[in-house]
């Protein structure tokens, strides 16, 4: 996968994950053009389109478009499953996820994505494992309880951590 974009029906960007090195200017240009192209698609069209020299896979969930650019040798149909898996993870984490959750907790959306995909590929194919890892990491962040035994103690927990 080269990149993943989440955007609303009005074209507002909610998440952008780039797995290829591009300048800010290029990213903005690509985002603008691709968002426009996808939003112009009619509901009866299929989820795939050729854009520049890439294959683009997109799917709409409620008010959010999930859009991935994959390489020519990648499997479009399984990419749809990848997108779906990410949505399921978000759903489980937030409890019936909606766009507002992603807006107000965008950093968490990124953390979940980064626990599911690395360099554009799936790290773990088990939903349970990904959610568990997020949960544990969140606990570390909270530091209101002791982290489980599988995790070593962090030193310097003496300073009070401020919530974001």
């Amino acid at each position, binding site marked *: 996968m080269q990149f993943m974009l989440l955007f609303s029906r009005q074209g507002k960007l909610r998440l952008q994950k780039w797995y290829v090195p591009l300048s800010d200017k290029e990213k903005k240009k690509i985002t603008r053009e691709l968002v426009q192209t996808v939003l112009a698609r009619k509901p009866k069209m299929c989820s795939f389109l050729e854009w520049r020299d890439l294959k683009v896979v997109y799917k709409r969930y409620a008010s959010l478009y999930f859009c991935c650019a994959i390489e020519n040798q990648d499997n*479009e149909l399984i990419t749809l499953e990848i997108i779906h898996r990410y949505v399921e993870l978000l759903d489980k984490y937030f409890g019936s996820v909606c766009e507002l959750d992603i807006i107000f907790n965008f950093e968490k959306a990124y953390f979940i994505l980064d626990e599911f995909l690395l360099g554009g590929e799936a790290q773990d*194919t088990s939903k349970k494992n990904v959610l568990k*890892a997020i949960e544990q990491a969140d606990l570390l*962040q909270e530091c209101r309880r002791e982290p489980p035994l599988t995790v070593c103690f962090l030193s310097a927990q003496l300073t009070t951590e401020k919530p*974001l």
Partner: protein
Amino acid sequence: MPAPIRLRELIRTIRTARTQAEEREMIQKECAAIRSSFREEDNTYRCRNVAKLLYMHMLGYPAHFGQLECLKLIASQKFTDKRIGYLGAMLLLDERQDVHLLMTNCIKNDLNHSTQYVQGLALCTLGCMGSSEMCRDLAGEVEKLLKTSNSYLRKKAALCAVHVIRKVPELMEMFLPATKNLLSEKNHGVLHTSVVLLTEMCERSPDMLLHFRKLVPQLVRILKNLIMSGYSPEHDVSGISDPFLQVRILRLLRILGRSDDDSSEAMNDILAQVATNTETSKNVGNAILYETVLTIMDIKSESGLRVLAINILGRFLLNNDKNIRYVALTSLLKTVQTDHNAVQRHRSTIVDCLKDLDVSIKRRAMELSFALVNGNNIRGMMKELLYFLDSCDPEFKADCASGVFLAAEKYAPSKRWHIDTIMRVLTTAGSYVRDDSVPNLIQLITNSVEMHAYTVQRLYKALLDDISQQPLVQVSSWCIGEYGDLLVSGQCEEEEPIQVTEDEVLDVLEGLLVSNLSTPVTRGYSLTAIMKLSTRFSSVNRIKKVVSIYGSICLQMYSYSLQALFCRNDWCFSLSRKWTYLILFLSEAIPPMTAYSKNGLKIEFTFERANPNPNIAVITIHATNTTEADMTEFVFQAAVPKTFQLQLLSPSSNIVPALNQGSVTQVIRVLNPQKLTYTHKGSPIQDLAEVNNFPPQSWQ
């Protein structure tokens, strides 16, 4: 100092902005606050401030002043800081900036951290955006983690290694030992990422490919277990066990089996098994089947398996899910050359896809349909494709028209059918036909000698209906100019001959000359056709009158375009084919013309007919000079197209005297030694770069 506003509070506030200007104001205010907080090196709230900055960055506002702060967060001991810091690094930094190298040390430390979630952050960041330098520095750490027994880290290390290899291919070797027992893992995460790593290595290095071929039996076994094993809740997706892993294994098998008979044979059974046993009711099953088909088609599979694969694609074409239909068409397009007969069996389904609502599906169906046309099915296929041409979106028409012409040329069952097909394209999609089609069609018509009468009749009738489609009008004009005698003679074998008089034909051609719909190129065709008819029709006077009126106008237009030709001391001009033709036709009837007038130099042409040979036109050039200095070394040259002959007589002098005190005259004689026939054989021969300056609407 009050605490900086919290992230969610900021988000809430910004969302209340009613205009872009209001939003910008809020952002600027907050950025200023954040900037001063950064300047004060506030450790407590740095995390919060960077998080806010990241939000504002997502809205499109600049956030580069936060880059260094991300690095400070990464270096912090607090997990929250690191989490946001690494996220910020991935969003704000890229390998182009030197500052990202400062991360290297932090990442190195964090890769060796005692908490696996910190190690995970480091691996993730490195694997997402690590530059080649960073990868070089840290490859050793990644390799170490690839050998750990901690599956949480091992799976991440594998994908990180993929990135390292992509950035620094020479480092691939060092990861080889660590791959030794990757596939013996039970953990699906490690298995999946290992297969990805192995795939990357095999794709990049033929040596690695050879080395890893021995893994085929093991991969086959893993795949078999996935299919045969019972329900595993952890990895189940709609009743299929770990489809992600299945797909990746199939892809690796494809690479390993390519161009190797033994490996291909070893995977034959499992591929057949997956192809026949996978549940197809949901997308996930079809995703696996799709990958299976791709693998079967790419390795050295036996023909039975290949037919099985094509049939899967055939079934995909009938699926209600348009995504499935789309990948089927894409895959069939890839295999149509190698497995032509097998794909032919699904021709009618493919043709049905021409009626699909989705643009991408339609396009693929069209490409595939053209690929499937052959001598046996040409009539039926062409019927469908012409119907498609009638009703398709404009974006398809040009390609479809070209495709029809090509297919007709290759497989036309008869000349009449061929002409009819061309007619159909010209009348239904005439404006979309490519420019080069016109000369090609003219060539085709020329060669179909026995069809001339039929062709000119049909084209004439088409002109009566519609003169808006330029390629049609051009071909028709040419045809009438060439075979007008057949048209008025009332002879036609193929269909009922029409009764038309010379005057009626000339009316139509003249109509084209005056019509607003005709482009200059089209006008050229019709004027030339009229001229040609002077040798075929008896109403020569009418023709001469028409040509002299329109011809003079066209010559005048041409003279302006000649101006572009002249450069400093070398007065050279070229006559295009049509212009030469026109001069010969009209000769003395052309009024004197100013061919060039610039910087004080004026060149005029006068025309007369030579006696006794009427096929020679005589052009006299008169050069005068209004400037105060004489123009010396004045040399005039000319060139004409191949079939004509040119004679340049000696000039009266080489000096054009100043202040109109005299002129240089020179005579040019142009001869057309042949009968006035016409062929389109490219543009006049020129060595002059200036010829390109002719505006497109000039006569060529």
